[in-house]
């Protein structure tokens, strides 16, 4: 089989893995070597699906001894198989890297023979890159569940980031769909990597030249929509992983049907992309905005509102906290205003040092007034002529796309072609598709 076919098969087999960022570490090339890494991450291209391409993301092999039901590479699936030799893979990486096609390598693999054997092959590919080519660019390696911790340790010294995929958000789902894996085989390497990272931090203080163990930290991924877990459960799990294992990122991947199985959603099921999007928005709120999972969802409201983003939804249900005065509010409070992001909040703090802020100035700072106007005042004043009722707020918070979705859904239920906006039934009173919409709204206003 020639290298073109191998590349095609092994890219195809790896593309459902989402962890493609190249961020989190700053490095320069070693003397006589090649490659640097930028902490901010660099996208080298965007694929036809709009996703960023920054790493050569391939499997070492898609031959797999396991039989995870949701996976194209499962043993029982009839699909063309291929394997790179470690050297082929290293050469490909360097040649792409020299042409500035990629920022580095993302290497995962099916389980070839045994987890240990697979891990050794991956180590060899990385060794060639690091030792022979003196490559300092970014490498993300997937820990193979079940591999010996000594091998994980070697891999971790060669990689910048490691990840162990959670795959499915609960133990039950794992048992059902990934019979060869267990909660333990996933969490054990995760815990091990976390310990090594921490030990390494103290080592580096003690010995200046201690080699760095996965300096860009570890991440994980879970599949959304193949199993019945709710957004609430998923978000709590993500929060727990950030706390317990200090993960740098948790990625969510909307399930794309790749197999027919009575345990899986039907093959024609559309991947829940909007749900995935909401989870990423919520994840962002956990990591950068100081929210906790419990503020965004709770026992009674286990799914995100498909029509408005989690932050708007939260704000609408906490109108008692608003409006905030932009000239006085603290940074952390500003962050909670819909339409104000991390950058605009910082700029507000900066700009108000030189004088009182007015509404017309806020736009220049990057505040999305269309959203923020309902939640802020400037020196006690609300923007002129604004009549705030829950429905006007909601109407303006919904993006055009969401409006379209809402109207579409609604006309489906009622058989009516088009509706006048929000007049009756209102979106906030939980009419219509109860299971989809009603329970998303945390409380009537």
């Amino acid at each position, binding site marked *: 089989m020639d290298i073109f076919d191998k*590349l095609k098969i092994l890219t195809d087999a790896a593309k459902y893995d989402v962890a493609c960022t190249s961020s989190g570490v700053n490095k320069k*090339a070693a003397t006589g070597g*090649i490659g640097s890494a930028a902490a901010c991450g660099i996208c080298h291209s*965007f694929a*036809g699906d709009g996703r960023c391409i920054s790493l050569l993301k391939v499997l070492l092999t898609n031959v797999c001894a396991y039989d995870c039901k949701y996976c194209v590479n499962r043993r029982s699936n009839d699909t063309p198989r291929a394997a790179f030799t470690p050297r082929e893979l290293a050469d490909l990486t360097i040649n792409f890297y*020299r*042409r500035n096609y990629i920022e580095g390598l993302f290497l995962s693999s099916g389980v070839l023979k045994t987890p240990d054997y697979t891990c050794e092959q991956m180590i060899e590919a990385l060794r060639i890159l690091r030792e022979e080519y003196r490559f300092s660019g970014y490498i993300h390696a997937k820990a193979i569940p079940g591999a010996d911790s000594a091998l994980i340790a070697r891999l971790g010294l060669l990689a910048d980031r490691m990840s162990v995929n959670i795959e499915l958000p609960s133990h039950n789902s794992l048992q059902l769909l990934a019979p060869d894996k267990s909660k333990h085989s996933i969490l054990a390497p995760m815990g091990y990597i976390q310990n090594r990272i921490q030990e390494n931090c103290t080592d580096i203080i003690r010995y200046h030249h201690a080699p760095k163990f996965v300096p860009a930290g570890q991440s994980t991924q879970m599949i959304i929509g193949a199993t019945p877990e709710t957004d609430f459960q998923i978000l709590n799990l993500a929060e727990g992983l950030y706390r317990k294992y200090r993960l740098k990122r948790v990625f969510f991947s909307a399930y794309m049907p790749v197999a027919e199985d009575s345990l899986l959603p039907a093959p024609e099921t559309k991947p829940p992309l909007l749900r995935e999007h909401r989870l990423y928005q919520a994840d962002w709120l956990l990591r950068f905005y100081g929210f906790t999972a419990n503020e965004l969802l709770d026992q009674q409201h286990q799914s995100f509102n498909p029509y408005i983003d989690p932050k708007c939804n939260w704000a609408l249900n906490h109108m008692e906290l608003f409006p905030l005065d932009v000239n006085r509010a603290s940074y952390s409070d500003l962050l909670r205003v819909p339409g104000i992001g991390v950058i605009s909040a910082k700029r507000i703090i900066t*700009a108000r040092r030189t004088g009182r802020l007015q509404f*017309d100035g806020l736009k220049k700072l990057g505040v999305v007034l269309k959203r923020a106007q309902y939640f802020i005042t400037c020196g006690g004043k609300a923007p002129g002529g604004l009549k705030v009722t829950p429905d006007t707020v909601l109407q303006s918070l919904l993006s055009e796309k969401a409006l379209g979705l809402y109207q579409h859904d609604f006309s489906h239920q009622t058989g009516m072609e088009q509706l006048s906006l929000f007049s009756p039934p209102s979106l906030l009173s939980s009419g219509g598709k109860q299971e989809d919409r009603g329970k998303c709204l945390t409380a009537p206003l």
Partner: protein
Amino acid sequence: MPNRTALMYCYDGSFEGLLCCVFESYEQKEIPLDILLPEMAQGILLPVKEIITDTAKAGRVLGSIPQKMGAPTLEFVRHAFLTCLAHKELYILLFLRLGYRYGPAVLSRLTDPVVDKLFKAVKHLAKESHLFKGFVRFSIFSNVLVAEIEPKNYVLPLLRQHFCERYPEEHFLIVDKTHGMGLVYRPYESAVIPIRKLELPEPDENEEYFRRLWRVFYDAVEIQGRHNPKCRMSLMPKRYWKYMTEFGSAQQKSPRRLEGSGGGKLHF
């Protein structure tokens, strides 16, 4: 503040030249309506004052900027000068006047129209130069990496450090066709020089081989069930595609030329 005078300045297009315009503006207590390059100043009906670049004057203005408004402001102004903002010279002059008045705090006056205008322009520059860190595509001709780009802003000075750190042992060249300039590197020195004419040979077999492999990867990595050309276009506007090998457009059979006067000879 002096009134706007019914007068244009004309300068030589250099940063020093612009600093001399600032000098003149203060000395004469006047603010020009615009600051033009010589080719644009022809045929203008208003009086045009030619500002001669004088190193001593420029040096005095240059020294005063970090002193009066802090080093970050000077860096900001230098970046502003690289942007493609229309009338950037006038905005920089007005900005510096604010700087002399408010000191380092000028950078925080984000709601001032002049500061805001320049901030957005610098942000655009920063964004474009960041994109090019990824979108530059090198082709390898006898072991020299060569890339062409057509940026809106003058990004080469901002790409320098990144690519020098990325390829310390290589010889490379990035040609900015918009501005007729090139970033040249060989271990361990780099320079940005004018390049008005450049002929690239046809890619050899090895080069073609890796371009093809890259296209295989590019096509295979897309999840068809998520096809979303709109999203791709907003993240990677079409004007960048021209030189990106994954689209096959950089694979032209005839050698490409860059026409113009003078020749930047390359020594590797």
